[in-house]
């Protein structure tokens, strides 16, 4: 089984910051807007390098989204930065009308998604944002798994014309994808070849899926792990190719099972290749305060939870 090495824990938001810094140097049309969370979003370096292209809007996310939409008129490529909760639920109608319906080239960059935001608790831990964003016509939805992939995605979305929701997180997590790897929007990445079960994971759950695959390998179960960084447009073919081989699937995400990656995968299977599926996701609940590891454990979002789901789905084959 192909194995992956953690080159050192790093936060995905720093990958975004590094990508933005690079874009600042290479693309003069890139502008950045922030709603009083510059440090949290790792936008300080872009701000220092290009103060004329950095727009601090204060604690006013609705205004930020509208200004970003307006800046595209004149050829700018705005990247907005705030927490995932304030990037989506708080400003849904602004995104819907001024960005998505108006087809504006705005990149909504959202940190601190999911329960791994930790101690701040449920007011800040959005678990519904993927669903909210993927329902908007024309919106591309990306959830990256580590530092390197987040940096690569940040660079890639600047070249893609159209609205994008880029979701990443707060904690330091294993960094294992290639440095300066190519990021193809909408193209799933097969991490391990397997024949017994498919595990498709997104965001922080991708590393957990690899850990689960290792444990399964030791028990003689061959798991195919697929990193779905783009939830919309979904790489239907990669999912169907894998499930045609394995006959069952586990989806894993730091999000409510309602509206998330799992539901998108279930739609593909139901239409083209019905097969048993288990969901590793939060179960229609809010989060709470705690450390990221405690919360991942309590809400069933780690490699142990994936192993349990694999055991269940194998019995349903």
């Amino acid at each position: 089984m192909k194995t992956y090495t953690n080159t050192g824990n790093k936060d995905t938001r720093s990958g975004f910051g590094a990508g933005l810094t690079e874009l600042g140097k290479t693309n003069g049309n890139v502008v950045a807007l922030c709603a009083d969370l510059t440090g949290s979003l790792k936008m300080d370096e872009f701000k220092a390098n290009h103060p004329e292209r950095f727009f601090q809007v204060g604690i006013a996310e609705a205004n930020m989204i509208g200004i970003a939409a307006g800046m595209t008129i004149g050829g700018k490529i705005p990247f907005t930065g705030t927490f995932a909760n304030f990037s989506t639920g708080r400003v849904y109608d602004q995104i819907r009308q001024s960005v998505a319906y108006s087809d504006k080239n705005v990149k909504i960059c959202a940190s601190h998604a999911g329960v791994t935001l930790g101690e701040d608790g449920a007011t800040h831990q959005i678990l519904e944002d993927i669903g909210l964003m993927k329902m908007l016509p024309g919106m591309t939805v990306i959830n990256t798994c580590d530092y390197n992939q987040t940096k690569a995605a940040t660079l890639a979305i600047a070249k893609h014309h159209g609205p994008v929701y880029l979701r990443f997180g707060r904690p330091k997590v294993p960094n294992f994808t290639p440095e300066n790897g190519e990021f193809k929007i909408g193209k799933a990445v097969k991490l391990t070849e397997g024949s017994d079960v498919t595990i498709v994971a997104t965001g922080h759950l991708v590393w957990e899926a690899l850990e689960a695959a290792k444990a399964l390998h030791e028990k003689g179960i061959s798991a195919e792990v697929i990193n779905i960084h783009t939830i919309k447009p979904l790489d239907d073919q990669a999912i169907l190719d894998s499930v045609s081989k394995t006959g069952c699937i586990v989806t894993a995400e730091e999000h409510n099972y309602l509206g998330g990656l799992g539901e998108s995968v279930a739609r593909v299977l139901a239409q083209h290749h019905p097969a048993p599926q288990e969901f590793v996701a939060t179960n229609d609940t809010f989060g709470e305060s705690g450390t990221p590891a405690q919360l991942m454990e309590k809400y069933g979002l780690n490699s142990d939870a994936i192993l349990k789901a694999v055991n269940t789905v194998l019995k349903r084959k």
Partner: protein
Amino acid sequence: MPNIQQLEDLTTQVRRDILRMVHKVNSGHPGGSLGCAEFFVTLYQDIMETNEGFDMDGKGEDLFFLSNGHISPVYYSVLARSGYFPVDELNTFRLIDSRLQGHPTTHEGLPGVRIASGSLGQGMSVAIGAAEAKKLNNDNHIVYSLHGDGELQEGQNWEAIMYAAARKVDNLISIIDLNGQQIDGSTDNVLPMGSIKNKFEAFGWTVIEIEEGNNVEAIIKGMAEAKTLTGKGKPVCVLLKTVMGNGVDFMMHTHAWHGKAPNDEQLEIGLAQNAETLGDY
């Protein structure tokens, strides 16, 4: 540039367009549209510097954003009669497969429209963004936006009003259609807003008032003054006092025609009060 008589003739024709558009589909918003007819005609025919044709980025020209998108009939009529698309297309207002949606949108590619509006309170933020982009592009043109007075009850406006002053967005002129009416009644009855002038000034804007917002000459004079106030470190607000339903006697001074179309008889009365000056579509 057209003279005052030509602008007034066009306004009369625009009123006919508005009445006929909403009558045909028995829906739409004639009241606010009629109240702003003089303003739109003057804006597009006299005030704004625009390039030939339509380019979404609008570099090297003035831009306009309509925030209170429900007054689409006046917007569409004036865009068509300013050459952005064929006047005949006004026939398709609110019909299936039309570019003239109930509320304006870029989605169907209608020339002249740069943002969707309808859900209220979003247009000033967009206008600020476009104004900031102009500054980045060293484009010395002005961004105009229009808002209803009732629309100011939406909180996002006040985020935008605070930002524009703080960041010295002085290439922006935001016009408030001060007709004192909204769907449920007069603004004073629905939710009294106090002095809008004082509020804008307290936020750091320069405010001018156009007392006769349905008088073409007064609008030209007031907007010319507004232009001279740009580039001085402050955003400019124009309080345009209009009469909802202006030019059709039974629609004036009431909120009743905010979102209601005239019937056949009412249409005839309204058209009789506004002569066909430039030819109906």
